[in-house]
Structure formats: structure tokens, C-alpha cells
């Protein structure tokens, strides 16, 4: 047994970890209580098997690629960073990238990850044409919108609970360059931020960094980042059409003491960040896709900033209609606490594609908290606000929501469970997350 945790390093639990080298070995690895794991970037307990965790990153081959259509067939362990580095210079990028490029294709499908373009282009699963799935009862089946479509839509966003994704066929986006034309807008409060995001609907990419320490008149003050793929003509003379993704120079080598993050340091950081961003606001400029999409990837192991007890990310989505009031309430609670931290993100989402996909039309807010004190109780309070507004939490980030919160947020759960049962009558595929939220006890 090995101690395993997600990116948030909470919880840390025992699981048998296997690294199969062939699809046959993947099959042999599946026993009661198994789930697949990609690059371990789910924050909580989604990619930890109830008893056994099957690491898929060894499956990193591209099977075929057609430059005429951008269609690619690949093994599930290929990382998006690898796809970007390999195919970017050939003029192709994934349609959807989350906030880190160090996720596997299988993981991106299982969480149906969203990017800064979800409001207009949908999630990762929208660009997946088909999957090779190893079900809990041992069948290896190809699933798509046409073939085994129930299994397809349950697997997209299904958190690995329909079986192990072995391969996928998906489409890449044709791009002229690896650069993004970015426009920064500063918003002095939550209303202004939401107005700017609404106005940013037409932009391909839009996201707001929100100062979750600011209170009163400044509550919800934000920097909104809009982006479009830059054409060759927009690049400064001499710039390569595709920028080089640098290895992260900075890294957090040790767990920082838990006191490193306190009200004062977090407040100072947020103040500085807002002021520096506001200074850039107004005009537009061209930036490399790496800092635009993956600002935190440039700091290796940034999860250690939160100390060895780990951290929790609370990411909810609130339906459009009631969003303003509830977001205000949540931000007010968080600002009073004062320990939510660097990465607070507000963004508009569109409709999700998978049965259990997280997105729904509305606003998503993501907040990080160190694991300490009464944080679990505090987040339960926030969850009540989310549920009352018809919202839900993102399973890929979750480590602690209650069954009641989960069930209320995902009305399609029964349908998902029925499909899962048909693919895995014995219930072999189980994760720590499914034990906590899905499985009959």
C-alpha cells in the first residue's frame, strides 16, 4: 500500500498503486475497488481507488494524427503539456485547456474539464469523438455519440467511474500562432466584474481573477482577462509563431509552514496583484499561451505553499439567474474570514456535455483555503448557499462535500448510476470519491 493524495494533498489515504505497461495488464489490474489515475491533478479523492489505483501515465503514445482535419487518436495517459509542445509548433492546440497543462487526456475527459472558453465553446468532452473504455466487468468497448452513447456521455465527466479510459479520438484546433491577444479590464466591484464578463461573452476566452480579501465597497473587485488567438500578423517582428514552453524555474522545494499564509500576507498579495493588473488594464497586448492559460504552471509544486496539511479548493457554479446575489454573499463570508488565497477565479460557464459534467449556464467561483481550523464547517455553510441557489460543486476539485450537497447539485445522478451499473454490475470500479458520494453503503 502507498499513501496517495490529490493535488490538494488532502486527504492522504492508503491505496495499492499499480503502473501497468500494457492494456492487458490494465485489465488484470482491475479488482474490487479500482479507479484509474492520470497525472494526479484532481485536487481531492477522485483519482484514488477505494483499494487500488491504476496509474495511466505510462500510456503516452499518439496512435495517429491527420493534419488535414486535426483529428488525433491517442492513449489516455498523454499529457496536454505534451500535446501542446508537440503539436503547437505544427499549428494545432487542444480546443479546451484547464488552468494547468499537466493533466492527462483521460483525466481531462473523466472530469470534462473546462477552460476559459467554456461560455462559448464548451468543455473538453465536446471535442472528443470516441473513447476506448475498459469497463468494470472486463469488456473493452469503443464508445461515441453514435455507438454506446449512454456509456459515452456517462464517461465524459464521469470521474472515471464507468471504467478505465484507454484511448481517445479527439479534434485539435488549428491555430496560426501560439500567442494570445490579451485585453485586461479592471472592475472595481462585483457588479462591474459581472458586467465585464457578460460583455466578454463574445470573446473566445474570458476569466476574472477576483480579490477575495477586498470588502465593503471593493467587494468582488476583479481583473478580467479576455483573449483571442493571435494571427501571424499580430506578432512583433522576429517572434517565433510558436513560443517555447519553459520548464518552471521557480519551484516550492519544501512545505511552507502553515503560518506563511495569513491574513496579512494574503491581503498584501491581493492588493499588489490588483494594483499591478489594473495598471495594465485598458489596452491589449500579445502574450504567450503559456502564461495566459497556465499562470501557475510556472511555479512547480505550488501546492506546497499551503503547508503539509494541504489545501482545499472550493469550486461552485451558480445558475445565471440567482448568481449575483449568491456570489455576493459567498464573497462576503470569504472576505470576512480573510484566509482564502491567491487563486480566486470567477468565470462564466455554458452547458455541460456529459451526464455528470460540472458546468451549467451561470458563474463559477473557485477559491483556495488552507486545511486548518474550522474550514470544513465554513465550507459546509457556503455549500448551503450554493445548493439553495441550485448550484453544484466541481468533483475534480472536491475532497469534502456532503452527499446531500452532491445529490442536490446533480439531478442526473440516478441516470448516471443506472448506466454505471450496467457497465459494472459487480461494482469493481470505485474510488475514494465514489465511496464518499456515490456508492451504496
Amino acid at each position, binding site marked *: 500500500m502507498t499513501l496517495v493524495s490529490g493535488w490538494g494533498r488532502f486527504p492522504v489515504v492508503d491505496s495499492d498503486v499499480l503502473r501497468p*505497461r500494457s492494456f492487458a495488464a490494465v485489465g488484470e489490474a482491475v479488482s474490487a475497488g479500482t479507479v484509474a489515475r492520470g497525472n494526479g491533478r484532481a485536487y481531492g479523492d477522485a483519482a484514488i481507488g477505494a483499494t487500488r489505483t491504476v496509474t495511466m501515465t505510462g500510456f503516452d*503514445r*499518439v*496512435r*495517429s494524427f491527420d*493534419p488535414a482535419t486535426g483529428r*488525433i487518436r491517442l492513449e489516455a495517459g498523454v499529457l496536454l503539456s505534451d500535446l501542446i509542445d*508537440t*503539436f503547437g509548433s*505544427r499549428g494545432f492546440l487542444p480546443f479546451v485547456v484547464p488552468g494547468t497543462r499537466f493533466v492527462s487526456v483521460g483525466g481531462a475527459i473523466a472530469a470534462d474539464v473546462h477552460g476559459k472558453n467554456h461560455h462559448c465553446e464548451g468543455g473538453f468532452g465536446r471535442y472528443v469523438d470516441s473513447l476506448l473504455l475498459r469497463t468494470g466487468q472486463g469488456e473493452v468497448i469503443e464508445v461515441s455519440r453514435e455507438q454506446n452513447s449512454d456509456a459515452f456521455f456517462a464517461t465524459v465527466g464521469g470521474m472515471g467511474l464507468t471504467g478505465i479510459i484507454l484511448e481517445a479520438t479527439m479534434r485539435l484546433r488549428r491555430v496560426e500562432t501560439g500567442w494570445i491577444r490579451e485585453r485586461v479590464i479592471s472592475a472595481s466591484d462585483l457588479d462591474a466584474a459581472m458586467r465585464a464578463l457578460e460583455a466578454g461573452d463574445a470573446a473566445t476566452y474570458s476569466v476574472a481573477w477576483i480579490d477575495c480579501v477586498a470588502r465593503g465597497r471593493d467587494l468582488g473587485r476583479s481583473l478580467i482577462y479576455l483573449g483571442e488567438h493571435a494571427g501571424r500578423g499580430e506578432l512583433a517582428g522576429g517572434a517565433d509563431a510558436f513560443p517555447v514552453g519553459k520548464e518552471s524555474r521557480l519551484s516550492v522545494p519544501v512545505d511552507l509552514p502553515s503560518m506563511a499564509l495569513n491574513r496579512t500576507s494574503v491581503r498584501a498579495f491581493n492588493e499588489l496583484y490588483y494594483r499591478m493588473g489594473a495598471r495594465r488594464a485598458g489596452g491589449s497586448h500579445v502574450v504567450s499561451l503559456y502564461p495566459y492559460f497556465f499562470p501557475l504552471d510556472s511555479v512547480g509544486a505550488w501546492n506546497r505553499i499551503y503547508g503539509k496539511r494541504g489545501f482545499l479548493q472550493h469550486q461552485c457554479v451558480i445558475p445565471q439567474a440567482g448568481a449575483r446575489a449568491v456570489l455576493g454573499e459567498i464573497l462576503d463570508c470569504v472576505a470576512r474570514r480573510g484566509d482564502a488565497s491567491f487563486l480566486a477565479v470567477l468565470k462564466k460557464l455554458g452547458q455541460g456535455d456529459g451526464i455528470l459534467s460540472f458546468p451549467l449556464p451561470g458563474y463559477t467561483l473557485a477559491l483556495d483555503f488552507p486545511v486548518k481550523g474550522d474550514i470544513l464547517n465554513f465550507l459546509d455553510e457556503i455549500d448551503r448557499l450554493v445548493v439553495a441557489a441550485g448550484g453544484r460543486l466541481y468533483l475534480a476539485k472536491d475532497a469534502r462535500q456532503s452527499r446531500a450537497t452532491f445529490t442536490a447539485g446533480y439531478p442526473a445522478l440516478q441516470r448516471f448510476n443506472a448506466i454505471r451499473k450496467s457497465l459494472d454490475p459487480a461494482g469493481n470500479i470505485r474510488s475514494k470519491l465514489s465511496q464518499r458520494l456515490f456508492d451504496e453503503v
Partner: protein
Amino acid sequence: MTSRKSVLVLGGSSDIGRAAARAFAKAGYDVGLAGRDVATLEPDAADLRARYAIDVGLYKFDVLDTAAFAGFVSGLPALPDVVVSIVGLLGVQENAESDLAHATAIMRSNYEGPSLILGLFAEKFLGRGSGALVGVSSVAGDRGRASNYVYGSAKAGFSAFLSGLRARASRGGVHVVTVKPGFVRTKMTDGMKLIGPLTVEAPVVGDAILRAVENKTDVVYVSGKWRLVMLIIKTLPEAVFKKLKF
């Protein structure tokens, strides 16, 4: 054939072999992969073609079948610009202590075979007056240790062979690189206890091999920390060293 440069990777199905092939392919080389079982190399060939739109050839090569070496070299469609030998066998030290066949397999796979085949390519390269030869040896060859001296002694022999070959071949325009990877997370080391800060992933070794060829480096410790570790290990007096259990 294209006008691109080409690399031949012996031991193409190993993790380091795959990583080296990718590194060279990314840099625009056409790639030949050689291994015992050509069928197992097919997925990697498809991967390289899909990623980098290059030519990939597959060749059957068994490092223990030295009698076939001359035919292997002359049977290639063209003499490559670079040959990288990753082949080797870690084996099990305990078994090798009493099982002569196993010990022989380790010695032949890590010393005899790789040395002979690179020696053969060296002759061809010297005839042409250009080329680079890369031998993946091991830090284990820097000093024989109680826990793996059969493997280590074979790697020591290989390192010595490469060192001599380099001195000779450099006068003829042929460059020889010795790579000592240290701990690498691969199939070969699955299940072994590796020391985190001294361990690298296979792609790091692949990139290091490409860099060494391009920069004409002679001896590469993939992680600089190993140079220091092995310097200490090499300088320990024998009286102290023999008491150590590692």
C-alpha cells in the same frame, strides 16, 4: 530516404530508447528503432510518425546475437548519422552470484554486445569521416558495489570501451558519447526503491542524449548530482568502501 539527418536507436522499446527517439524526432531526425521484437516497436513507430511527420524504420536486433551484427549493419538501408545504444540487462545480482548463465547474460548484454555493435558502426563512421555514437552506460560502472557488481563490472567495461573508442575516433571526425543516467523511473526500475532527488524521468535522459550529440559532450551524468555522488564513492578508500552494504 529524405535529406534529414537520421538516428538509429538500439533498444528502441525501452523507456529511455523511446525517450531518445522522441527527442531526436522532435529535432527533425528520421528514426530507426531496433529491438528483439519488431512487432512491439510498431506502436512507438506510429507515435513518432504521428507526432513529428518523420520517417521511421524498424529493424530486428538482438544484442546477444553477435554473429548477426555485420549483417545487421550492412542490411540497413543507409548508414545513420547517429547510433544510440540503450540496450542492457539489469538482471538480479543475487541470482548472478551463483547462476553463471544469468551472470553471462548480464555481462554480454551490457558489455560485449553494445561494445561490439558500436565498434562496428565506428568503423563505418570512420570510413565516412562523420557521425556520432552514444553508449548508455551507468554510474554503476564507476565502482563495483556489493549490491550490483556483476551489472556494474559490465558497465565499467563498456565505459572503458567507449572512452578508448572516443580517443581513437575523434581523430577521424567521429564523436563518441558516454551517458551515465543514474536512477531513472522506467520499466527496468519498476518496484526498486529509488532516491527521489537522484531520480529522473526517461524524457530527461532522452533530451540529455540529444544535447550531448549536438554539443559534442564526451561524458554525460544526466543529473549533475550523480557526478558528485560517484566522485565521493570513487574516492572512498577500499578499506572503508568494502564495509558499506549498498
